């Protein structure tokens, strides 16, 4: 689970051009900061889901949700942080290796259940999938060897089956 002041919003939007720009405009124009943003088509190809991770106090988050809801192309806004949810992120990380350290890094990769996606003479590329805590601990473990490059997908998230009643959707937000 993320820190208490982090909020994971799951936003279903019309799958139309310009929607990402609208979301970005609202976020930037209202001075909100986002940690990560991941976008992809849903089971319904006419909609996309955006998973947006925000940091901010309750009031800021409230405004973010309401401002997003104002957009005509936004269909629902769900604050997953209000209930139980699963979140995952994929990270590619290029770690420097020497002949001596290679085996150690491979060991760490194995213990993290990371895939080794590229093997070079001076570096390895690891693919790590996990929640925030796992990604963070992987980075801690790999740091001493020399991290050369990181690419992260941003977090995606899904609510667990039993949703608490206070999970808000567009129909009831702000009442």
């Amino acid at each position, binding site marked *: 689970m993320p820190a208490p002041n982090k909020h994971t919003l799951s936003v279903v*939007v*019309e799958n139309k051009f*310009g929607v990402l*720009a*609208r979301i970005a*405009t609202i976020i930037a*124009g209202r001075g909100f900061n986002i940690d990560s943003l991941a976008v992809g088509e849903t089971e319904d190809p006419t909609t996309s889901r955006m998973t947006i991770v925000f940091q901010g106090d309750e*009031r800021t988050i*409230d*405004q973010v949700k*309401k*401002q997003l*809801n*104002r*957009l*005509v*192309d*936004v*269909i629902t806004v769900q604050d997953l942080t209000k209930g139980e949810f699963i979140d995952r992120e994929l990270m590619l990380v290029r770690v420097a290796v020497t002949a001596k350290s290679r085996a150690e890094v491979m060991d760490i990769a194995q213990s993290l259940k990371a895939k080794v996606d590229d093997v070079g003479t001076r570096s390895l590329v690891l693919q790590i999938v996990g929640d925030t805590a796992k990604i963070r601990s992987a980075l801690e473990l790999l740091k001493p060897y020399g991290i050369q490059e990181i690419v992260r997908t941003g977090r995606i998230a899904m609510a667990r089956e039993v949703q608490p009643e206070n999970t808000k959707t*567009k*129909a009831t*937000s*702000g*009442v």
Partner: protein
Amino acid sequence: MAKMKGAQILTECLKREGVDVLFGYPGGANLPIYDALYDSPIKHVLVRHEQGAAHMADGYARATGKVGVCLATSGPGATNLVTGIATAFMDSIPMVVITGQVRTYLIGNDAFQEADVCGITRPITKHNFLVKDAAQLARTIREAFYIAGTGKPGPVLVDIPVDVSQAEVDFVWPEKVELRGYKPHRFYDGHPIQVDKALALILGAKRPVIYVGGGAVMSNATAEVREFAKLTGAPVTTTCMALGIYPESDPQSLRMLGMHGAASTNYAVQYCDLLINVGARFDDRVTGTVATFSPKSKKIHIDIDPASINKSIMVDVPIIGDVKRVLAVLNTALKAEKKRPDLSDWWDQIHEWQKKHPLTYQPSKPGGKLKPQYVLEVLSELTKGKCLMTTDVGQHQMWACQFYRWNQPRTYITSGGLGTMGYGLPAAIGAQFGRPDERVICLSGDGSFVMNIQELATAVDHKLPIKTIILNNGNLGMVRQWQEMFYKRRFSHSGIRPPDFAMVAQGFGARGVRITKPEEVRPTLEKILKDDDCWVVDAICDEDEKVFPIIPPGKAIDEMIMDMA
């Protein structure tokens, strides 16, 4: 089914949406639309600058409550609309803006007169569309009008490439509009639990104040507001967006609140125990410093926009809904309830404040300079508070709020949120087209008026009997006032040498007159109000006159400066 060109579909859709007039300017990318307009019964008003078209559509919308429509070409035509769109957006004015765009295959190519208009206007429209397929045009226009005019209204832009206006497709008029991400009707009635909570607060309050904003005007809730006031017996103050929704001639009226509101009104707001916000948004010009705003009151907030709730001021009972309908429910409940709290102590207190701090000014001494406030007093008297006035922005705008008596809604038309200089004259033209039988007055300043002075040509072209009154103090008066009060009298670039406005007016084919003495005011206004000519009255006023009271920046609303003495 007969095939129609995109441009013809557009004009047909406008007709079916009930558009009777549109304001625009032709250019390369909207030529097919102008060609279709040649055969259309819709009246077109040719402006002299696209900004004028946007303000006219806005003025028309405010005067009538209908959706205003303007039209411009791509690139510079569209970018010239931007200030007008932002003005409408800030004040939630329903408007449909149509722009030509370069051909679809040229978009993104830096083509001649190309601008990413959807990108530019994204933060200042309620929604916008780029139509890439003529088959989608009718639906898009229908959606644009629906979005603009429902919920919290606002401007919607439709960008139409040349090839889309030229393409021939089947015309299908969509009977219904359904948008899964936009369902404003869900909120219209207000939640019954919230309404009950509000009722309990109203029945328990000993020092209530009703604070009415532009949302009540949008919602056409005049009758409901007036009934609510009578049923509660509470004092009513309005923002400048809602002037006249409650008659200022009525003893329950506290007139305008905020930065330049009456001192007694701001005291009442600051020391009330219940503040009932009816379609206003706790704008910073009303609250002063947020932290010290009306600290002892419970707050009810009726607003159609959930995002307005708790945006700047935390409230106790939010009611999301349409003002007209929520007040109707509250009024019914109040009628069923016999007992009322005794407000006589509260009224005594308010009357004491009113007696101690009347809204007033120093009249001209014999032979002295003309006072701008006097012009408004005479105007108010001669028009019996019944004219439809548009303004520009600055001191004259605030004096109009203070010294004209507002008794009807949609009669004071001003750029409240964005504060757009140059708004007044084009808005007056739009308002006059919307309400041809009303006496329309554009109140302006010598700084503002030159910003869209070219629209005098439009007014004269259409023989509009608009009367412009310029309170000319040879300065950007409000800037000068702030420099005098808060910048140690360092009058940096606020002096502005105006042209001879009477002569300029004559050059445009209007009539012009300059007045300098208090005794000239009444006969001049009497004369121009009677005839049907387009007039510009250049009233040379005392440059040292200031707008009082004023809440200084960063202060609480009871920390007003009353005068310079």
